[in-house]
């Protein structure tokens, strides 16, 4: 596939991705911070559904011999430290590297600063990589997968994993129905008790 066709494919797939992120409301800072504060579970619902769907379709494609898997290599220190720093950034940005673009598309101005900071962070890592690689990106077991650990084939393991995720999602939905997690402006914002327009007047001291 030519460079130009790859770009067009990326653009078309991105439009679908961004459309789905916006409709799911998962790009909202209120949803992402809400998830990290364990009061809103829309992010986990979208995320686990997409993982389960991906596992099933990749299991089918792999089962028919149409694709080769490309798991990332395991470097324990880099995965742990990188994961922690990424998570702290996500909570404070109220965005992920992908959803920040959806925030810009939806009109959030602070997301432009998140994007600029992200580009700066990626460049900083580029400069630091030659120094960090011998410390953190070395050793490790390589492209380790749960197939290597269990001896079970990918299609079986992936479909089994998806089935477990479906059970988790059914329980999650029973516990926290998604419609109740949207908020009045579908942004995961529920206001605080004092802000609510119909806040009970009983909070005020009666004038006696």
């Amino acid at each position: 596939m030519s460079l130009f066709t790859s770009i067009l494919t990326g653009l078309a797939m991105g439009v679908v991705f961004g459309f789905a992120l916006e409709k799911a409301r998962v790009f909202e800072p209120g949803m992402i911070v809400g998830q990290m504060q364990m009061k809103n579970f829309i992010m986990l619902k979208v995320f686990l559904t997409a993982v389960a769907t991906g596992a099933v379709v990749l299991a089918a494609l792999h089962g028919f011999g149409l694709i080769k898997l490309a798991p990332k290599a395991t470097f324990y220190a880099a995965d742990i430290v990188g994961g922690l720093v990424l998570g702290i950034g996500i909570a404070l940005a109220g965005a992920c590297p992908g959803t920040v673009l959806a925030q810009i598309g939806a009109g959030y101005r602070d997301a432009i600063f998140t994007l600029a900071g992200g580009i700066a962070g990626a460049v900083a890592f580029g400069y630091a990589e030659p120094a960090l690689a011998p410390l953190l990106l070395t050793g490790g077991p390589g492209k380790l997968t749960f197939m290597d650990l269990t001896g079970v084939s990918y299609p079986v393991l992936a479909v089994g994993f998806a089935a477990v995720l479906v059970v988790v999602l059914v329980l999650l939905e029973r516990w926290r129905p998604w419609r109740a997690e949207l908020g009045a402006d579908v942004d995961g914002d529920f206001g605080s008790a004092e802000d609510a327009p119909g806040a009970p007047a009983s909070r005020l001291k009666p004038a006696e």
Partner: protein
Amino acid sequence: MTASAHIVPAQAQVRRPGMFQQKAWSPYVAGIAIGLLQVPAFLLISTALGASSSYVTVGGFIAALVDPGIIQIDYVAKHMAATGKNWWQVALVAGVALGAFLSMKLSGAHRRPISPIWRRALGTSSPALRYAMAFGAGFLMLFGARLADGCTSGHGLSGMAQMAVSSTIAVTFMFVGGIAAATLLLRRI
């Protein structure tokens, strides 16, 4: 009786919004749509969904304007190369902005410049503080993602679906870091 008899037909005239005009979809419908994107990613580009590599591609070209020497760094040069995978991902994230914009226009929703949750999370409504914080958070987010070799998309969606051990570790610690920061550094929203 007569009052309610008038209300019913009036309500029936309100057309239900079509799927694309709705403000919110079920997270399960949207999640399935996102998961299905792995099919064209693997079949057409021989790669998995991801987002954070594109920041190195774009950042590399911006940095090269000031420091042409950056292309001597193999890691950066590899991301700046004119390969289908590199530029597919740049186009993908650009498309995410466009797709969200289109969805927003179709549903007629409007966003304020800063989400109302930040006033409560930060205890102040100062835009300058929020902008500075967003820049710093974006920096951490991408530095961490590049160190871990993937973000919520590359490790989260794609790596976990491929049963990779690295991705399971990275995603676990991403939630550990995120929950700790949101609990210790932000106020309850």
